[in-house]
């Protein structure tokens, strides 16, 4: 069976959930080979093995951290030359998409971004125009380079026994042209990753900047907090939590929109959620057209009442 390269992102020395999703999708096409940027320590190797990686390739050139994107694309191109994979799967993050674009040029291969599904014959599914259309596509040329959105599939265990191989790559001088001169780490919210969370509670302009109830409800439901661009632009919540066309796309089991009107650019980021609950005082708000449950009312009354009831129930 042919091999399929996947890029396994690490977060704090743990394999990210989207990487396990890539392994699961890759197994439809062939034998997954995971590429890890940085050291693949025991926890990382174990998780990749559990989800079916038959080989783990670790690339730890310091240039990967010192320059933007390019060294990673070069490393993957070099690995692809030796592995000759049937496809290359990368998670759809801004960086992942740029790596994929460069790789497609290097390998003279077709590129598909933001797939939400992948079939055994390599056909991808994408959701476009703010989720209003579904498109299937395929790559007739080269090694298909495909970026996959988080939450495309539920990771499935398929134990394998990979060896971790250290791979040396050569990073060219032209790849060292956009230098990362400073990196300020961000504080973690302690809540689930927005794009991976099963529940997302999002607040908009209607919150008036008061996110305490949004956060409390998210915590009671084990969910993540999101925000509309209006809320982000007002400085009420950081940009990293913006949902929509120019923020994150989320596709949770449950999306709760409070004080969000549901502009097309916002819908682009949450339309594919499995269930949607909206609280808005304007019965004409477009968000209600998407909602499985729409509550026409003041979020300052509804949210505290919901929180109170959940707490009572939990005792």
């Amino acid at each position, binding site marked *: 069976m042919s091999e399929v390269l996947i890029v396994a992102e690490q*977060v704090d020395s743990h394999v990210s959930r989207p990487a396990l999703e890539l392994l699961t999708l890759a197994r439809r096409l062939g034998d997954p080979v995971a590429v890890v940027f940085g050291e693949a320590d025991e926890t990382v190797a174990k998780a990749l093995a559990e989800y079916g990686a038959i080989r783990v390739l670790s690339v730890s050139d310091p240039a990967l951290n010192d320059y*933007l*994107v390019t060294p990673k694309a070069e490393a993957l191109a070099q690995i692809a030359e030796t592995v000759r994979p049937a496809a290359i799967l990368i998670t759809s*993050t*801004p*960086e992942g*998409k*740029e790596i994929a*674009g*460069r790789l*497609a*040029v*290097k390998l*003279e291969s*077709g*590129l598909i*971004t933001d797939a939400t599904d992948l079939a055994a014959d390599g*056909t991808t599914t994408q959701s476009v*125009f703010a989720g*209003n*259309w*579904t*498109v*299937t*596509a*395929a*790559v*007739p*040329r080269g090694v*298909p380079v495909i970026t996959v959105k988080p939450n495309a599939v539920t990771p499935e265990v398929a134990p394998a026994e990979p060896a971790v191989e250290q791979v040396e790559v050569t990073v060219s001088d032209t790849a060292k*042209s*956009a*230098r*990362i*001169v*400073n*990196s*300020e780490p*961000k504080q973690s919210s302690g809540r689930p990753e927005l794009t991976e969370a099963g529940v997302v509670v999002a607040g908009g302009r209607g919150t008036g900047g008061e996110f305490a109830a949004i956060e409390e409800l998210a915590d009671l*439901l084990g969910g993540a907090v999101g925000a509309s661009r209006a809320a982000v632009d007002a400085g009420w919540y950081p*940009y*990293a939590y913006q949902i929509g066309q*120019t923020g994150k796309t989320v596709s949770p*089991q449950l999306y709760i929109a409070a004080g969000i009107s549901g502009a097309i650019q916002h819908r682009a980021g949450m339309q594919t959620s499995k269930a*949607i609950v909206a609280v808005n005082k304007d019965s004409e708000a477009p968000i209600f*057209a*998407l*909602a499985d*449950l*729409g*509550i*026409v*009312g003041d979020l300052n*009354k*509804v949210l505290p*009442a*919901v929180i109170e*009831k*959940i707490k009572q*129930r939990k005792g």
Partner: protein
Amino acid sequence: MKIVVLVKYVPDATGERSFAADGTVDRAGSDGLLSELDEYAVEQALQIADKRDDVEVVVMTLGPEDAADAIKRSLQMGASAGIHIIDDAVHGSDAAATSAILAEAIKKAVPDLVICGMASTDGTMGVIPAMIAERLDWPAATLGATLSLADDRITIRRDTDVASLTIEASLPAIVSVTDQSGDARYPSMKGILAAKKKPVETWTLADLAIDTSSVGLDAAWSKVLQTTPRPPKEPGRIIVDEDDAGSAAFVEFLTAGKYI
């Protein structure tokens, strides 16, 4: 100093967007406009031009006849000149061909700096700047929430989920800027009048020495197989919050879905 801004003409997101029978974006059936995300790129170029006297801002678009509107709007905002790459053979081009054509056009225009938007609002791939840089072997500082230029060196701030990065590159370089980079200006009455006299060149693939058979739908490295409109959503349940009915229905919904 010459800055080229890459701008795309896209179908209006607030209207009905759809696909033509050949799987390409239906550009004839909907109103188009300069991609709002590229307005941020034009704005950043104009801000650099506002601070120095030696800056020429040239906007460049690849697209059909209507795409001239994207150039027009950019000129009204204050850009100095336009280049419209137009050729029937381009129809149906994928990111590979689009980036190849734009890379050749950039070589011909010989700018010091290329500024792009973060993504086009129709394709939303966000890959063209990186792919052009790959082809030109130029430094790329992408997704800048800020952009500054000093001593032939550009600096951007790029915000990721885990960190805020400062990235530097020397010119010539390609950058892209996000919608966090600062509101784009509206064309003034003076700007609208002045735009009429600004030069716009049209280039074809022949002008760029690009073989027409290497681009377009048939040559695409990725192919759309099928396009399906999402079925309209079944209307949900709407509750007016009177006498606590809203929170009661909400909690009932959470219970039924086993969220609590």
